[in-house]
């Protein structure tokens, strides 16, 4: 594995995302790698299995573009706004396979995958119906008390896409703000594409090793993609574009409007830089955020 893993997102998607792959684009409401999804759409991938706790607009767009055959999820909504109209319509019409967990079940699957375990246990919830419809939920007897526990099997995606605030060229990455399932997804996956707001010198990363959630040797590609997460956000870099989420709620009432949107904003631009320019100055300013710095810490010069 080379020490300098920098490449364009176009190259990374071409090399590490193949038709039929199980893809985990990570990020719980934060750091959602929209730019990578758009590149997958542009490159015309098909039959993907899309896994994410919250499909959000990122998978709605990929499903609308015809990239996916199956969805693995735990909450399917336009966060804070409403429903995912396209995904819902595809499922109701029987055109999209799905596999469903609670958030904890989904994240426990990633945790098992990341830890190299054959399953993760969870305490019973008594709800029952999700266990009944998803045979991946199993039950075991606790050998100490005789009580039952629920277990889920590992999830090991073919590729995870992880957006971060800053990374060095080897792939050591700092993440802050909501960290969701970023670490678990990276360790669970067979390949990892890192997208970063900033590529920094190794010394910046190594000045604060406790902040490094993703270490270089699980990373295959390091892509410098500023504003990768729009309309989601990157803590400290730009705000969530809530207006976009509201607009999407209206727009996605019509499949034609969605396809037209993809034509203009995905196929119509070369890459994220062009997309961001196209958003325009008003949006840039609306999403800009004033700084609020962490109190520094002293590691000591031992």
């Amino acid at each position, binding site marked *: 594995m080379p020490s300098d893993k920098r490449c364009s997102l176009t190259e990374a998607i071409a090399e590490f995302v193949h038709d039929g792959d199980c893809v985990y684009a990570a990020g719980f409401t934060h750091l959602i790698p929209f730019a990578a999804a758009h590149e997958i759409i542009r490159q015309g991938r098909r039959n993907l299995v899309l896994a994410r706790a919250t499909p959000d607009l990122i998978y709605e767009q990929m499903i609308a573009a015809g990239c996916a055959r199956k969805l693995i999820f735990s909450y399917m909504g336009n966060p804070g706004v409403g429903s995912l109209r396209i995904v819902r319509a595809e499922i109701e019409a029987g055109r999209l396979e799905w596999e469903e967990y*609670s958030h*904890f079940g989904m994240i426990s699957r990633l945790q098992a995958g990341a830890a190299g375990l054959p399953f993760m246990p969870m305490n019973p919830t008594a709800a029952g119906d999700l266990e009944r419809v998803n045979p991946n939920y199993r039950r075991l007897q606790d050998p100490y008390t005789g009580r039952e526990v629920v277990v889920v099997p590992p999830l090991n995606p073919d590729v995870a896409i992880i957006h971060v605030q800053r990374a060095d060229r080897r792939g050591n990455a700092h993440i802050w703000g909501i*960290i969701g399932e970023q670490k678990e997804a990276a360790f669970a996956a067979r390949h990892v594409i890192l997208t970063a707001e900033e590529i920094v010198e190794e010394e910046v990363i190594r000045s604060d090793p406790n902040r490094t959630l993703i270490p270089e040797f699980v990373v295959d590609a390091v892509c410098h993609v500023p504003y990768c997460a729009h309309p989601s956000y990157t*803590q400290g870099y730009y705000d969530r574009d809530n207006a976009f989420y509201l607009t999407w709620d209206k727009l996605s009432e019509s499949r034609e409007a969605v396809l037209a949107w993809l034509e203009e904003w995905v196929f119509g631009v070369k890459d994220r830089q062009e997309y961001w320019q196209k958003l325009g100055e008003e949006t840039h300013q609306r999403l800009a955020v004033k700084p609020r710095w962490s109190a520094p810490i002293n590691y000591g010069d031992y």
Partner: protein
Amino acid sequence: MSAYTAAELMTINAARLLRDHDVVFVGVGLPNLACNLAQRTHAPNLVLVYEAGVIGARPSRLPLSIGDPTLVSGAASVCSMYDIFSLYLQRGLIDVGFLGGAQIDRFGNINATVIGDYFHPKVRLPGSGGSMEIAAWANRCYIITPHQKRRFPERVDFRTSAGFLSGRAERIASGVRGGGPQAVVTDLGILEPDESGELILTALHPGVTVEQVQANTGWPLRVAANLRTTEPPTDEELRILREELDPQGIYIR
């Protein structure tokens, strides 16, 4: 200031159920408003925990999603999703969870998954998210929902999260740690479980009749012997909601 909306009425009544020092698993929307209102009135030491992994949030603007960056800046702690569900919720550190759903049945079971058959859905809903575990493991759960007959069927189509199952005895036998739903706050009044776990009408909002509530409930609703009327929203509660928490009226209108 005496007039108020249904959302304001529900939010204020939910806020009053919270106790000082409660650790609350908050959702966005009305539960978030209710928690922030309680924090600014009778429960200044309320700890707000969000399923995105944020603990002790002090949002300086109204959060518009469960993962709004304003929840993080100035929070006490941020952890992974796995940690929030295991170390906090499963471990038993959460006092209060808020739940919602398309259907709530006679025993407080909730459906947030599907209307109709699971494999051939008539209406596909968002699914569990965190609610399956919150309903099981939080010490107390509260439900905020508008009171409509289709939302209160005798039995839910799909049991996404557990209320009292077929009755309190079944929940106890299941061994789940939490106490189950303690109250359903609607725009007509408040339902609470009796000894058997059945939801019964325990309070009416001012001006609402028992008949109105029954007409909007899908099972023969029992009425508590000591049925009470809720205190109307105070001017101070309404002021905080309208001026401090949701000045644009995104949720309370």
